[in-house]
């Protein structure tokens, strides 16, 4: 059939049941993305004869004779349409995976539509930004960080309350430089993981377990193998017998080795049983249906309270606890922490007031819009190459080498731009099976998760039950704190131990209490595995402790801000969980006091939003604090190169990945500053084991404070070497030379850097090891109205204050905070992976798992404390995970203030709030 894409005519036949989305991509128009494949997210939006539709649910055959317009048809880099340019100007994307569909949709709006944006954009989901910037890009308004509209002339606002320091020639530092990929992202031209045409590509489809716990007694793949177009059917018989963990850390010993690529025992519903590699997804699916499997169904346990009891089935009873690093495999205990500082019994006996409660958090899906995916192949040198959607390409390389017994020089792992991660891609979920498939077939193989896979087999945020007991004297000074934690890591351990330890760390050490006790357990169940999620366990325990503190403030009769001032750690206090924390942590550039003051003032000041009238509406306000280390413990490494190129540009080779965190922008700014040049002269080659020396990875908020610091050091080193070169060249002193945008200047003399370095260029390197870590703070405050008849929670005012150190890029940092708040509001009010109690996930599509839409989010006022970190580049702290953590408890405290009942579990959905009011 004949149809056109962006004016170019195509003559091609779709398959009978093909969707327009994949058909367009078959024509190598990769700007049409898959977020959900069910018509819910809008990432695949296109115009058909000018009418916007979701191409994933549009039958391809109906495009016959039609004109299809994608984001690239609206405008291309250098020649953007108005709406695309506004998305650039407003920094209205982070990962950018939703952006192409967003601009296509927005291109259809006229002025009358602007008032209806919440309705019109409800099927355009963005997981990163929190929508404020998108709304402003479409509506063409600029606001300051408090949401106050600025004069139209203020084209590039810099939302901040502390003065943004312009450092002379280092002008780009502290200013809102746009992401280098901006123009490509808004036109759909920036390639993500699967946006590449690979000749002869095979597709991998997994046959998954229908049972929550079973042993495969027989597996017959003959009929599947015989299907034309099938190249391999992989079962546990093909799997390496090396146990590993899907979780990835700098030290692989952090995570339990309990996983095989393909196992003869399945421990959760949906686990891989076999993998088919075929010419197409359709053939692979058909073959998977032909595989005959005999299972011996084993007893299963789904309740974390029951799984450690005598008589419960041992899920990993076949493991050696010592070598796999599992505390007690027979009793499903993965990790535990028991410790006491001081004497809590005495602390409670001295208390005039005691509060206690048990809080429960739910399973949350990261819902990065780009699903997990890998394409693997063998290159001309027979190296295994993996192009993957990962936050940790170097750690993937290391573990793939270990699993398949290969030398690192024979494995290359890289990422294109990654469509969101939030911790979900600090995990090997696709790379291992693709590697096996490539090595067995010798062919290029792609494995792409469906959105359903993301909900049913991809690890979720750990559900945790947290009991907190606090004791305080008459005035509210804490005398004792006791935390008891039960974390359900599901069928595999992966990030279970790490999140358990982290959950009880900065949440507990934020408060100076003479007596503390922590009892934490992380246990196996036959549920879908839990994994790393923004905040890495902290948020769950912060929800409980900050809620308990709010109860305490009520009992004592003291303002909750005041209670925090009274008990929070100060720079002169040690950081204590169950003992004094390591001396790698420093309370540098302490900004908690400012955060508390700024939030309190903003809340007292209020805003113009009034509660709905009617006796059923009750108004309340609440706040919560959070603390987080600026990077993970025990080392986070980055080795960076910066090269002065023969063409006058500079190339940064850095291992960390860009997945919406904005590190590419910040790295560009840092290099440009050190080299006194404009950001446009800087190229960043990243997240590729070939292009950079090493990076532990983009997790633990390390992109700025580790990789960024190394970039700055390497660029400064290069600047020194260039001055030295100039001095040798001219027999003058190095100090006589300054760099000025690709030129070395000394008085009247000017030398071109390009000529100086010659065709070979000049490279400088630098390392950062993360040996010393700092601390960042956030405070969130809410004023809410609650409808006592329906349980509806309306946010009237939302305030977040952040101790981010020096703000390198105000617009981007504001975006990170807004995005963290948005994701946290989703966790607090809406999101829940529901299962049937027997291991089957029921929320398998996006429409049944509600991530925030434009209409669900308030504009959050963002204020920065005026601090400088002694460790971070230019005094910056990390601020990626942090903004998420205080939101849920602040909201719970505001709701409690409004209705006089305390929500004890997340999400605080309308039906739960309503039920709270019934007894």
């Amino acid at each position: 059939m004949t149809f056109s894409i962006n004016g170019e005519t195509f003559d091609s036949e779709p398959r009978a049941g093909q969707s327009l989305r994949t058909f367009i991509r078959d024509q190598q128009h990769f700007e049409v993305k898959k977020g959900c494949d069910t018509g819910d997210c809008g990432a695949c939006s296109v115009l058909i004869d000018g009418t916007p539709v979701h191409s994933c649910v549009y039958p391809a055959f109906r495009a016959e004779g039609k004109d299809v317009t994608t984001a690239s048809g609206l405008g291309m880099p250098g020649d953007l349409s108005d709406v695309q340019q506004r998305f650039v100007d407003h920094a209205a994307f982070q990962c950018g995976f939703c952006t192409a569909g967003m601009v296509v949709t927005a291109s259809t709006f006229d002025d009358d539509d602007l008032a209806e944006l919440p309705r019109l954009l409800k099927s355009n989901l963005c997981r990163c930004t929190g929508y404020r910037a998108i709304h402003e890009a479409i509506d063409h308004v600029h606001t300051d960080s408090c949401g106050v509209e600025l004069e139209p002339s203020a084209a590039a606002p810099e939302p901040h309350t502390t003065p943004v320091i312009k450092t002379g020639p280092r002008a780009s530092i502290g200013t809102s430089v746009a992401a280098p990929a901006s123009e490509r992202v808004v036109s759909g031209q920036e390639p993500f993981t699967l946006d590449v045409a690979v000749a002869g590509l095979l597709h991998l489809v997994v046959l998954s377990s229908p049972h929550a716990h079973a042993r495969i007694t027989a597996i017959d793949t003959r009929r599947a193998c015989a299907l034309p177009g099938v190249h391999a059917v992989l079962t546990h018989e093909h799997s390496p017998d090396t146990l590993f963990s899907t979780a990835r850390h700098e030290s692989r010993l952090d995570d339990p080795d309990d996983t095989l690529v393909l196992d003869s025992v399945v421990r959760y519903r949906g686990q891989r049983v076999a993998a088919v590699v075929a010419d197409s997804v359709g053939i692979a699916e058909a073959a998977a249906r032909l595989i005959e499997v005999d299972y011996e169904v084993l007893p299963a346990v789904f309740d974390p309270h029951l799984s450690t009891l005598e008589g419960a089935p041992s899920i990993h009873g076949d493991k050696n606890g010592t070598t796999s690093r599992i505390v007690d495999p027979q009793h499903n205990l993965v990790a535990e922490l028991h410790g006491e500082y001081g004497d809590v019994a005495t602390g409670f006996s001295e208390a005039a007031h005691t509060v206690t409660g048990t809080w429960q958090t739910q399973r949350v899906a990261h819902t990065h819009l780009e699903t997990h995916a890998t394409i693997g192949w063998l290159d001309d040198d027979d190296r295994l190459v993996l192009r993957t959607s990962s936050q940790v390409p170097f750690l993937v390389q290391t573990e793939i080498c270990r699993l398949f017994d290969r030398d690192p020089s024979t494995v290359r792992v890289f990422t294109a731009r990654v469509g969101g991660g939030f911790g979900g891609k600090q995990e090997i979920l696709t790379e291992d099976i693709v590697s096996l498939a490539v090595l067995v077939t010798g062919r290029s193989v792609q494995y792409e998760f469906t959105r359903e896979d993301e909900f049913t087999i991809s690890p979720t945020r750990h559900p945790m039950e947290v009991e907190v007991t606090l004791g305080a004297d008459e005035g509210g000074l804490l005398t004792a704190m006791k935390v008891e934690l039960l974390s359900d890591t599901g069928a595999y351990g992966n990030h279970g131990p790490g999140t358990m330890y982290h959950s009880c760390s900065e949440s507990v050490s934020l408060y100076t209490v003479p007596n503390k006790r922590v009892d934490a357990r992380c246990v196996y169940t036959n549920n879908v595995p839990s994994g790393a999620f923004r905040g890495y366990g902290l948020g769950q325990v912060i929800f409980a402790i900050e809620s308990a503190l709010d109860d305490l403030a009520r009992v004592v009769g003291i303002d909750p801000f005041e209670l925090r001032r009274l008990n929070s750690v100060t720079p002169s206090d040690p950081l204590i969980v169950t003992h004094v924390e390591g001396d790698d942590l420093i309370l540098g550039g302490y900004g908690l006091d400012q955060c508390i003051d700024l939030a309190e003032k903003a809340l007292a000041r209020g805003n113009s939003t009034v509660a709905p009238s009617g006796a059923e509406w009750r108004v309340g306000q609440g706040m919560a604090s959070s603390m987080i280390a600026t990077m993970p413990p025990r080392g986070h490494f980055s080795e960076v190169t910066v090269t002065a190129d023969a063409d006058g540009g500079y190339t940064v080779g850095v291992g960390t990945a860009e997945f919406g965190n904005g590190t590419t922008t910040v790295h560009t700014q840092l290099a440009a500053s050190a080299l006194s040049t404009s950001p446009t002269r800087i190229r960043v080659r990243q997240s590729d084991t070939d292009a950079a020396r090493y990076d532990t990875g983009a997790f633990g908020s390390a992109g700025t404070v580790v990789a960024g610091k190394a970039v700055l050091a390497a660029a400064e080193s290069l600047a020194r070497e260039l001055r030295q070169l100039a001095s040798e060249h001219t027999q003058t002193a190095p100090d006589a030379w300054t760099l000025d945008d690709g030129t070395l200047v000394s008085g009247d003399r000017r030398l071109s850097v390009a000529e100086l370095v010659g065709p070979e260029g000049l490279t400088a390197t630098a390392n950062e090891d993360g040996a010393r870590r700092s601390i960042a703070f956030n405070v969130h405050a809410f004023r809410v109205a609650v409808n006592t008849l329906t349980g509806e929670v309306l946010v009237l005012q939302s305030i977040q204050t952040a101790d981010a150190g020096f703000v390198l890029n105000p617009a981007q940092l504001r975006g990170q905070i807004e995005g963290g708040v948005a994701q946290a509001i989703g966790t607090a009010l809406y999101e829940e992976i529901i299962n049937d109690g027997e291991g089957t996930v029921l929320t398998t599509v996006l429409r049944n798992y509600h991530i925030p839409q434009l209409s669900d989010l308030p504009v959050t006022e963002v204020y920065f404390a005026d601090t400088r970190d002694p460790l971070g580049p230019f005094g910056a702290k990390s601020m990626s995970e942090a903004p998420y953590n205080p939101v849920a408890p602040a909201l719970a405290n505001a709701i409690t203030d409004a209705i006089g009942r305390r929500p004890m579990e997340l999400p605080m959905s309308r039906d739960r709030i309503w039920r709270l009011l019934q007894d």
Partner: protein
Amino acid sequence: MDLNTVNRVVPARSRADLRELGKGAVPLAGGSVLFAEPDPQIHTLVDLQTFGWAPFEVTEKGLEVAATATLAELSRLPDDRGWRAYPLFSQCCTALFGSFKVWNVATVGGNICTALPAGPMTSLFSALDAEALIWKGDGSDLRVPVSELVTGNTTTSLDSGDVLRSLHVSTRSLGSRTAYRKIALSAIGRSGAVVIGRLDPVDGSFVLTVSAATVHPEQRRFAGLPTASELRAAIESIDSWFTDAHGAADWRRAVSVVLGEEIRLELTEASR
């Protein structure tokens, strides 16, 4: 998503073409549901859009809506007949979980036949006491009330091979004053309850239609506007509340009572 087991599309141009329907051969309207749910049993799509049915026909008896009319078309229905129930059409379109882009393809008939409790076209045409014209697989015609067509969560009274041809709304229904309320677990999320009241213009009778909160539409009829307690008792007598990701059954029951009372007050005010 791609429907990888589908190997054939039959463009239906006459009723005889519907004989293709049967096991694994299903009718295709807008596609926004079929292409969103993998079903490996399906091998053939029988395309109803090729019938080229006119989306609307207005006669002295009322409004005839083709099953293949899109929600976008329904939302643009001209307001030139003085129908008091007119606002209900766009109100119910906005109750669709999908945005205006989905309205561009999703059809009235597809929404009803999918039979999700939250199907807003089920809510709309039930509340208007519309009648569905079914083309039976055996070639006969059958007319059934829309409120009885949807029998449960994703179940209908249709047999395999049956096709929903059109919906008939009487002039009397179109002349009714209506009041509409929707609530979800989020501001404009998938409906947890859609409650619609309708006052008959001739005899003043009142019908309350509860949907989205119950597995199939529930209607309670009164000779005139009921008292608050009568209405509450009638709503509380419903026993088909259900729990899913869009709300717990007890909450759905409670908020339906709240919305029902708001509707009663609105219509009481309007009929003064």
